[in-house]
């Protein structure tokens, strides 16, 4: 599913250097990435999603060499094959719950906004317990509800890879459990690979694999 080889990345005008000699993640599975702040966890997620391109090395996601794709192809790949969930939800405040879920269809030509897609969006919201809030503004939802909307948005295109960057970082323990359950159940139902960055070690037992990011980078360990 994900195959990283001799990956190096650095930001311009920064001393930060990310080096991942080798990393493999099979599909479908759920992987938690832990590690100290600033170790490059989010950068790795962005490299997997094709938001960033590596300076050296290769990343293959779903049999697709990300680094070799053009900008437009990477965007299309991201829209079609990758779902992203963020710590602070990153919902569009001026859109309703349903419109936020349908956003991937509105910001690119990769996916058409068909009645099937609408039906799928409504089904995802219903599964997330948000059927009563479909037309509401996202500003009127609780933190947990917002994150569930963000998860529905990430799952709209039935992605092969779901990347979650500390999705429970801003949630209370009860809501964290609910959101995590939603993520893991969805992954199981849709045969999706979940890669989630977290600082909460109490959640690690829910995942198939755990990668200690700092240690991993130093030892270039392969995770299968």
């Amino acid at each position, binding site marked *: 599913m994900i195959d990283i080889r001799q990956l190096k990345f650095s930001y311009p005008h920064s001393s930060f250097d990310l080096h991942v000699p080798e990393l493999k993640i099979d599909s479908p599975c759920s992987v938690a990435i832990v590690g100290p702040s600033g170790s490059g966890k989010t950068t790795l997620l*962005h490299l997997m*999603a094709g*938001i960033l391109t590596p300076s050296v090395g290769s990343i293959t996601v779903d049999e697709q060499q990300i680094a070799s794709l053009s*900008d*437009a192809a990477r*965007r*299309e790949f*991201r*829209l079609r094959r990758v779902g*992203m969930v*963020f710590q602070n939800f*990153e919902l*569009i*405040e*001026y*859109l309703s719950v349903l*419109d936020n879920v349908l*956003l*991937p*269809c*509105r*910001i*690119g030509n*990769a996916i058409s*906004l068909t009645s099937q897609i609408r039906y799928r969006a409504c089904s995802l919201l219903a599964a997330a317990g948000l059927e009563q809030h479909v037309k509401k*503004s996202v500003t009127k939802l609780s933190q947990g509800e917002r994150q569930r909307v963000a998860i529905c*948005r990430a799952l709209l295109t039935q992605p092969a890879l779901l990347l979650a960057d500390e999705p429970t970082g801003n949630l209370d323990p009860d809501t964290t459990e609910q959101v995590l359950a939603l993520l893991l159940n969805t992954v199981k139902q849709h045969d999706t690979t979940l890669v989630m960055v977290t600082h909460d070690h109490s959640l690690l037992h829910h995942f198939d694999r755990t990668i200690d990011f700092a240690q991993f980078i130093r030892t270039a360990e392969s995770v299968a």
Partner: protein
Amino acid sequence: MTNAFYLALRSLWFHRGRALTIILCLALTLWLPMTVHLLLDQFRAEIVFRANSTPLVIGAKGSRIDLALQALYFETVAPEQTTMAEANYVQDSGFATPIPVHLNYRTQTVNNSTAPIVGTTIEYFEFRNLRIGQGQGMSILGDCVLGSGLSKKMQLEPGDKILSAPKNAFNLAGDYPLKMNIVGVLAESQSPDDNAVFIDVKTAWIIDGIGHGHQSLESESVDDGVLLNKSDTSVTASAAVLPFTEITPDNLASFHFHGDEDTFPITAVIAVPHSRKDQTLLLGRYASVHTQAAQCVKPADVVEDLLSIVFRVEQLVWISSMLAAAVTALLLCLVLMLSIRLRAAEMQTMHKLGCSRSTVAMLLGSEIFLMTAAGVSLAIIGAWCSHLVAADWLRSWLF
């Protein structure tokens, strides 16, 4: 594109306070010059039409602007009076048909309105293409016809009476008010004629006191105090003789004029030349040989001079409006730049999800386009409405 418009609309609706402020700023900035332009266009069209339809105006020497505007609009500063000799001179020249215009009096106030009394001849109505809308035309001394607008304002109609106002209420020896019979109301012409009272020029001279009617001095019932001297050829009466202040069928025959008609006052003569050549010849006569006391002006030329001043004022309005528009545009750019900075996180999210920079630009462009379109539409609608409302006001102010 549809998606960009949809997202732009949702964004504008969510930030409707800010969007509305920007739209109103744009609309107001555009509304003012648009409205001024429309009103000045109308002003120009109406004033030029009236001037162009009046070939020549002859009157006493002095301000050509006062002379032309008084003959056209009746309401401006009255020029020096000329005499009926000018009308007769034009008639005798054979170059033009003279239409005397006597503008020395106004009506007394009725329903808070007063109007100029225009003494003229029947040719004026044909020349201005004025039709009787109600009642009939003037037939005897003392008859008057009202403009349609004035009839509505004063709520007067055929059969009613209207009084002239003395020029000076404190001059007991001056002109007396004349009670005039309203015999007709003109059809609406959307011109200054709508707000005037028309009488025969001879009726105007009666108000002047040049013509008058009074009790018979030859009947047996005349008091001794009234008659000062009586011979076979002349009768001299004292100030006790009773003058008529209303012309009726009974006293019509007693009205008469003293003096030579050539000396009777009028304000101007509208000359309608028979041809372009006749117009040039008549202008030439007044420019060179005929008289030192009168002048002949082309209202179109006078109005053109006036409009050149209006053009300069319009240019000033345009320049100040353009400056205001530039300042508004700069401020709006600042607001948009700040807004884009505030929405950087939103743009970043879209980018992370797979949105191209061109789509983000299209989204922002759609918002700017929608606000600009709304602002411009609002300005156009506002300018049009203002023009409709102000057009009547402008016309009433002009005429």
